[in-house]
């Protein structure tokens, strides 16, 4: 539970990790010359985990956090990228080397009901790893057989995780969810690992039991000097247990940094929205309205170009030629996105208009079409050159030429966010967002627009006074240096707490 000292070597270093799953990739598909489609579960992830710390990986379902955890342990073969564990390349390991790595790195799975073999006693489950790794190597000196030694070790482990040693001959179905998760933890600890991936270890548990397990994990970390990679979707759990956090969205890390920095001064608009969305268990929460992110996470089969988050981002950067309120720009972007990526057709609008129309004499009226579109995509308030362009595009769309309409909108409204993929920048507390990438795209909009962009997106909930300087991050000319200085400040303050 220590902050990584400067210059310390990470225990685990992940670089550009990719894991794609391919569809239509069988021999039959190849004979028919079908193009395989890839599902980009993990799409270029960089992580470092320092000895003794807990790195949280947090994100919504489908963002690739579990796949990352399993791929870096080589439980799944990576498509690309490198993983170095204690200086050795995990991807190149084989034979004995890999076996040794397996002993040093363990995993606790999410679902305590399906991750334990129902036909083995918990003693066998906990001792199985010992047996596979040929432990003990020599017969114990006190005359016990190797089997007895393993059994005693399993007893010890069960006691350590808060179960009774008498329960060694019970089967998993005789235990409750929390107890099974304890068995899973005992199994992961059996080989004395240095590094444990905890894949949503408490999300299947009730809150009262969840707190028991979290406390247990903290105690074990301290006792055995473990390093954790803690995968979770529950932000309050992450805040509680992690030293540093990486926030994932659609297969990529969008923000990473010390826990307090991330939670008190999030940089990436996605992190902000995520924090804003979480309901707090306190009376002040009553009736709090959040501005939720619109829409769903896009499919990883066809992630948006550039920044993956741009389709839901409340702060998309507008091209130099456009300067309209964020909501209106969002409306135009939504229209484009639906046309380009979701197969939106003019025909469906006509059908809706027809079904709303009374009587049989329905005529295709372009004016009504444009009216309906403006309403659907909140485009009514546009004015000036922007309106002309959109009107133009709607006219083209009304004539059924979707591609051309999309093209017309793309020419006028293409955002820097879709052209270039942002990279993690900002040192210790880094975000992959063009807003922080360089000064060119910084928020030097007039105050009104900043107000719009930031509507309802302030620091969530009641924040400690440390947050006073959070807004500095939004400083139009806040280069990386300033940001880092902020991060350091916060770390210092936390130490005092």
């Amino acid at each position, binding site marked *: 539970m220590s902050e990584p000292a400067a210059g310390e070597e990470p225990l685990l270093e992940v670089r550009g990790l990719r894991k794609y799953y391919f569809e239509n990739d069988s021999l039959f598909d190849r004979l028919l010359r079908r193009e395989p489609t890839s599902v980009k579960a993990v799409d270029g992830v960089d992580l470092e985990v320092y000895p003794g710390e807990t790195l949280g990986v947090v994100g*919504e379902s489908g963002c690739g956090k579990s796949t990352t955890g399993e791929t870096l342990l080589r439980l799944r073969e990576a498509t690309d990228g490198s993983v170095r564990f204690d200086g050795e390349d995990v991807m190149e390991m084989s034979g004995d080397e890999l076996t040794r790595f397996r002993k040093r790195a363990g995993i606790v799975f999410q679902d305590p009901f399906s991750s334990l073999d129902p036909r083995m006693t918990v003693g066998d489950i906990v001792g199985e790893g010992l047996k596979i790794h040929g432990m003990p190597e020599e017969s114990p000196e006190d005359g016990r057989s190797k089997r007895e030694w393993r059994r005693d070790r399993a007893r010890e482990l069960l006691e350590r995780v808060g179960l009774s040693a008498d329960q060694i001959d019970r089967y998993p179905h005789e235990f409750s969810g929390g*107890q099974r998760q304890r068995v899973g933890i005992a199994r992961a600890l059996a080989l004395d690992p240095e590094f444990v991936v905890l894949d949503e270890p408490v999300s299947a548990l*009730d809150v009262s*039991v969840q*707190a028991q397990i979290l406390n247990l994990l903290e105690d074990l970390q301290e006792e055995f000097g473990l390093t954790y990679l803690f995968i979770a979707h529950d932000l309050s759990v992450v805040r509680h247990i992690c030293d540093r956090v990486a926030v994932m969205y659609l297969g990529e890390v969008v923000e990473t940094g010390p826990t307090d920095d991330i939670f008190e001064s999030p940089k990436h608009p996605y992190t902000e929205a995520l924090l804003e969305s*979480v309901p707090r268990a*306190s009376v002040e929460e009553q009736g709090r309205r959040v501005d939720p992110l619109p829409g769903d996470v896009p499919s990883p089969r066809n992630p948006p170009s550039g920044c993956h988050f741009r389709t839901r981002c409340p702060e998309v950067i507008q091209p130099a030629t456009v300067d309209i309120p964020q909501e209106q720009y969002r409306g135009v972007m939504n229209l484009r996105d639906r046309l380009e990526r979701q197969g939106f057709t003019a025909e*469906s609008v006509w059908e809706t208009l027809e079904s709303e129309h009374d009587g049989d004499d329905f005529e295709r009226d372009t004016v009504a079409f444009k009216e309906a579109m403006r309403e659907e995509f909140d485009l009514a308030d546009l004015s000036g050159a922007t309106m002309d362009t959109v009107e133009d595009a709607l006219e083209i769309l009304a004539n059924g030429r979707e591609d051309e309409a999309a093209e017309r909108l793309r020419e006028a409204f293409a955002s820097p966010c879709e052209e270039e993929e942002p990279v993690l920048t900002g040192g210790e507390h880094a975000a992959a967002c063009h807003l922080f990438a360089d000064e060119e795209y910084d928020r030097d909009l007039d105050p009104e627009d900043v107000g719009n962009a930031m509507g309802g997106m302030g620091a969530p*909930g*009641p924040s400690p006074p440390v947050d006073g300087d959070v807004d500095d991050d939004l400083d139009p000319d806040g280069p990386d240096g300033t940001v880092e200085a902020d991060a350091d400040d916060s770390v210092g303050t936390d130490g005092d707490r």
Partner: protein
Amino acid sequence: MSETTSGTERAGTPTGDGAPEGHPDDVLRVRDLSTRFFTEEGQINAVESLDFTVRDGEVFGIVGESGSGKSVAALSLVDLVDSPGRITSGEVWYRDADLADEFRDDVPEAVDGEFVDTRRLPEGVRRALRGPAFSMVFQDPMSSLNPSITVGEQIAEAVEVQRRARANPRRTRSRTQGYGMGRLIVDSLLPNRGYTSESSMNRAIELLEQVGIPDPAERAHEYPHQFSGGMLQRAMIAQALAGEPDVLIADEPTTALDVTIQAQILNLLRDLQEEQDTSVVMITHDLGVIARMCNRVGVMYAGQIVERGTLSDVFDSPVHPYTEGLIGSIPDLDDPAPRLQPIEGNVPSLLDEEMGGRCFFADRCPKAMSDCLQPIPEYDAEPGTDEHAARCVLTEREYDEADALPPDHFDRNEEVRGDE
């Protein structure tokens, strides 16, 4: 003990006459509702003499861990408990002046003023109340919708049922049961003869639009697997709204969803509730969701509501050690406390023979005393108000270590149970 229970004890007598006393805005008053499951392993007391009220236009929250009986309580309200479960006792008083007039002469014991006891109404009438009076949003949208029927058609079915019911009120045969063998044969021969009509389909599309599904006309013709989880939950809500219910029961409506989607659905539920002045019973395990949505809360443990009151009663001045423990177990997002205070042990099994006549929480309670070894009625936590009440002797007396149970008091029972 006797002198403490006098005066403030308000445990409902099993089959009282008339509706229980309550707030004038009550739309639903539940008294002494018990549901049991009769399984091979024994009788399971899933819901044990439940008392609560729901008022006009409010959100009443029921919070509890898994296995606390909150979902069964919801199903019991709408009489959807399946065999081997059965509602063994209790009254569900629902305010409906028209219904009360209709049954005042036929079933006098089921009517009190504007209230009717749905448990004593004929089965068919109770059935007819599902939709216009009560409707339900289930937890898992993926498994609650039929995968082989388009989303639009499933919602249109609900609309159609309500339309036929309005045309012919109280005749249940005109509703779901209208689909008999005859219709089945005709439909098999003429596959295009659907149950739904064009007008109900259009209404379904309107409903989908109301719950915020883009391109409703097009999406209505898609199947559930083509919807995302959040969209499906919206569709489920649209279906529940088809009958314009007075009371919407939402059973863990956001548990299967991610936080950003959860925020969308909670906003939607809030908007709908405010627009249509529906009362909502919100069932969840997430105290954060309760805090954001609810006016009043009931905390369930082992089939009972162990504490109820307004949101601030329960969150800021809890009396029952279980409520305290539940709140202490949650890591605070804004203030990472050094150590969580979990409740030791596990949720009890609800097998009748193992429950015994005591406070069900006594075996995990840090403040268990000898007084806790008898059945605990509900006491007022703050004298004079009817709002804040708890099933705990600590409402009546201070914790006294002299009376504390020895720490191994329950170990013997647990040996027998072989579970912990």
